[in-house]
């Protein structure tokens, strides 16, 4: 029980951090971490098929595709001076 509470808290903090970082590489790694903890949660909910799919597709291939897309465009988010 305690383990699940800690994991879910870390997952929510990491999701908030994915929206705050200015360097897009950090943001992508935080989103990959959310996916990785979701794979662990799927194991606790007795769903091994879905855990394997989420770990291989969500945590590995999504991050790879995002990093290739960053390389073809810009890496840093623009600073917002005025809205």
């Amino acid at each position, binding site marked *: 029980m305690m383990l699940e509470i800690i994991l879910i808290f870390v997952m929510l903090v990491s999701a908030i951090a994915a929206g705050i970082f200015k360097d897009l590489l950090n943001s992508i790694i935080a989103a990959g971490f959310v996916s990785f903890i979701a794979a662990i949660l799927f194991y606790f909910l*007795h*769903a091994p098929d879905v855990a394997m799919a989420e770990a291989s597709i969500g945590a590995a291939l999504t991050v790879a595709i995002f990093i290739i897309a960053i390389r073809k465009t810009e890496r840093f988010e623009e600073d917002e001076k005025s809205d």
Partner: protein
Amino acid sequence: MEFIENYLYYIASFGLILIGLYIMLIKKNLIKIIIGLSIIDTGVNILLITMGYLRNGTAPIFSKENLLPSRMVDPIPQALVLTAIVIGVAILALALALAIVLYRHYGTLNVSKIRGLKW
């Protein structure tokens, strides 16, 4: 404490959906908006699997001969979520390809500077 024990996984998926929706609505960089879409996807999948959970249940695989089928968790949401995860990655790949072509054409990824996308 009773509240947390009963609704813990619901709080997780509810929080992820709200955070993803916030990132999609407020941020201005196109790749950040797509990251928000991916977070919403993960949240919805957690919600679907949580609906099929049975307390003190086991995974729906008959590995040994005599396992009671009445103590197994629901296998139908797991099949649907398997489909949803793969479709999520396909959507992400296509969205990023469109973002690359937009950058090639306009030179910037800021949503408020691209004509036709600002609101």
